[in-house]
């Protein structure tokens, strides 16, 4: 036996689901903003490279993407349909993203891009300390540390792992 829904019932269902979606979207947006505000979603390193410094390529990508996203939203709402995105805007978005990718690739290809100055200083001091003992390499449970002098004076001695 088929159950036919009346127009009124369909309209009521549409309204209920519509307001349900609105409630869900509103709750999601409010939750995200609240989590960002309280720091649970940590954005402090959003613009940082691996070494902790701010990245210009990330900054320009963030700014330009945000501007295009806001404009896209406003135009969609105003016109009731997805707006036509000109070739110029797409080209600029592509340049922005490519600059970010290139900057990231270059950063990861050198020590200064992935380590802080403190870490590099620690590594130099470790290498110097090993060199002062006259050992060529130092082996511990984590692997081989950086080498000291070229000519080994004593065979490598296993070092107990530091707790």
């Amino acid at each position, binding site marked *: 036996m088929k159950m036919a829904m009346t127009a009124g019932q369909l309209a009521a269902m549409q309204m209920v689901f519509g307001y349900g979606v609105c409630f869900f*979207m509103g709750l999601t947006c409010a939750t995200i903003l609240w989590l960002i505000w309280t720091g649970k979603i940590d954005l402090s390193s959003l613009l940082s490279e691996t070494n902790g410094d701010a990245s210009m390529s990330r900054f320009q990508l963030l700014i330009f993407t945000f501007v295009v996203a806001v404009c896209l939203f406003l135009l969609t709402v105003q016109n009731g349909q997805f707006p036509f995105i000109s070739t110029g805007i797409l080209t600029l978005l592509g340049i922005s993203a490519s600059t970010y990718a290139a900057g990231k690739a*270059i950063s990861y290809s050198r020590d200064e891009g992935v380590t802080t100055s403190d870490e590099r200083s620690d590594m130099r001091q470790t290498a110097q300390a090993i060199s002062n003992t006259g050992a060529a390499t130092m082996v511990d449970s984590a692997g081989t540390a950086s080498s000291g002098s070229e000519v080994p004076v004593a065979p490598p001695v296993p070092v107990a792992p530091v707790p």
Partner: protein
Amino acid sequence: MVLFLQTKVMHMSVAKLLYWEMLGFLVGLVCLLAWRMLTGQMALRGLLMRKDGRGQRVSPERVPLLLATLGLSGYVLVQVFEGGLRSFPDVGWQWVAVFGGSSGLYAGVKALTTLRRKV
């Protein structure tokens, strides 16, 4: 107050309600990010500085990229609003050249600096 809001909400269409929610989210997100940047909670240290480990010096190729980004973003926003929120502006080849040139300069100098240090 709650009854007043409930009445207001019930008279709003679903589309209008979604519009205000999305707008509120976008505005809230932009304001949060801007607040974090201005109060130093989001790291902007060294944004314009050289990253070659030879001390803190302003990097000349980063300044044009920053200015081009801010200028282009402002231009797009102004054109969209001046056009009555009808369509995206038709960005001329001059803006593409300026932005592309400053980005290319930034990436090129960064790559050159890296190659020099490797050699």
